[in-house]
């Protein structure tokens, strides 16, 4: 009942409430809603036919394929890392734990361009391994492996960051109970831990996927921009745009914008699921009364 109480003494006057709402929503309208509408409006500026033609261009299709391929390769690695890191950090105590948490955040802080440059310096022609790689005829930069490596770097923290606080909050009672009942390590993980973290894991994967498919700066540096070969969709957008082919650029952009919208919806659904689950657990196990 207290939720419906309007706290009169702690409320702004009506004119101020309306002004603030107008200012906030106005800001979001100009900075979020309008660009989103503009993407689709520009993409369809030439009609449905031009849109379809732009997207069915072989270069566009290969860009879509490459984008999906990189994400599919990258995500399992970062899921494995995220789960391992969260397991070690949330369930055990060891020295240097807070330093480790800070280091996991590092890729968020580094400029994508610097990330690309770093791998160029290592695997490029004048890089540390450059001569050895060219002797053995292995191409890493300006080729697919380099693009996968920078995407790994860029999306490295997402899953771990979701799981660490979640698993810390859940504690280790359930796992200890499972072990005391005779479960093996993997049985404990698949039957107890994984069901508890599944929504958090999915949440991290959704965010990592959006970033993996959308990354531009880092991938741009190591891709070499070889058409039909090392062009992901975000890079394709740039190339077509710079050729003054607005419809082509925005048609590709609209696919990515659609991906962004799907990401937002999926994220909202998972957030809702997570909230529902905690609420369900709360009502199933009411706190003991202290009176």
């Amino acid at each position, binding site marked *: 009942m207290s939720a419906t109480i309007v706290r009169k003494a702690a409320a702004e006057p009506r004119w101020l409430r309306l002004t603030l709402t107008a200012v906030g929503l106005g800001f979001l309208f100009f900075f979020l809603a309008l660009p989103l509408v503009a993407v689709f409006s520009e993409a369809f500026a030439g009609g449905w036919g031009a849109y379809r033609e732009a997207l069915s261009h072989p270069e566009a299709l290969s860009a879509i394929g490459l984008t999906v391929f990189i994400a599919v390769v990258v995500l399992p690695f970062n899921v494995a890392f995220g789960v391992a890191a969260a397991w070690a950090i949330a369930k055990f105590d060891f020295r240097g734990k807070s330093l480790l948490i800070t280091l996991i955040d590092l890729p968020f*802080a580094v400029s994508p361009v610097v990330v690309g440059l770093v791998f160029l310096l290592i695997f490029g022609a004048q890089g540390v391994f450059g001569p050895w790689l060219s002797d053995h005829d292995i191409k890493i930069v300006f080729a697919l492996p380099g693009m996968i490596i920078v995407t790994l770097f860029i999306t490295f923290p997402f899953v771990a960051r979701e799981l660490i606080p979640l698993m810390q909050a859940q504690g280790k009672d359930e796992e200890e109970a499972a072990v005391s009942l005779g479960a093996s390590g993997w049985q404990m993980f698949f039957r107890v831990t994984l069901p508890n973290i599944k929504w958090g894991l999915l949440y991290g994967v959704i965010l990592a996927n959006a970033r993996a498919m959308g990354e531009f700066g880092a991938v741009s540096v190591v891709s070499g921009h070889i058409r039909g070969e090392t062009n992901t969709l975000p890079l394709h957008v740039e190339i077509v745009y710079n050729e003054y082919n607005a419809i082509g650029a925005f048609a590709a952009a609209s696919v990515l914008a659609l991906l962004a919208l799907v990401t937002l919806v999926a*994220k909202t659904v998972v957030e809702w699921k997570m909230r529902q689950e905690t609420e369900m657990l709360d009502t199933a196990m009411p706190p003991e009364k202290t009176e």
Partner: protein
Amino acid sequence: MKRVLPGFGLSLGFTLAYLSLLILLPLSGLIFKASALTLDQFWAVATGERAMAAYRVTFGASLLAALINAFFGLVVAWILVRYPFPGKRLVDSLVDLPFALPTSVAGITLATLYAGNGWIGRHLEPLGLKVAFTPLGIVVALTFISLPFVVRTLQPVIEDIEPEVEEAAATLGASRWQTFVRVLLPGIFPALLTGFTLAFSRAVGEYGSVIFIAGNMPLISEITPLLIISKLEQYDVVGATALACVMLAISFAMLLAVNGLQWWAANRHHGKERVSI
């Protein structure tokens, strides 16, 4: 110490190996490469005229964008937590759009919107306000990409404010403004500063969205990440490396600042020693 749960060695070992191979070793490779330069050479590259101008543009625009987001982010977080309005859930989800939308898409869209014939630029140009292909365009792009940070760090903090605290201030005779400035703002300030720092840190490193709208004129509207790229394209790997080292140092500093801020927010007003009576 006997550990009850299995997998400590495996998970920590994997974590450290993966972190070292993918993140730490490559980054130290950058520093190693830069160490081939003498200090004078490094200094000359890192503080050259074009580099200094790029820093000015990058940090100036990032600071402005972060300030804009601090103000509007506070308003947006406040109305999302406190005021009912239709479509609130939708608006709340939309706030994360800049995280989900690839930067190149944001870049071409903002450039189109703010160009002289664009939906927004068309109305600004007669007022003498050129946004696209000027430093102002950089501010717009950076504001867009760093928009969610302040909102998302403030929202849970505003949700956690006990309404009783505001009512206590009211019964003690404080006006709404006094309550905001003296009671609420000190409480949410660390979160505001954290959000601001995160936004600033993200804006400083941003590349994709800016290059389409900036105009990229050396000394005027060229950001540091773009300067790194153009040095690379001119096969000036040493110059690019020096600039990247500067950027990396700033990234570290920002990361430390955010951690420090969070530590400060969690520990202030708990005094030196805890007393329990």
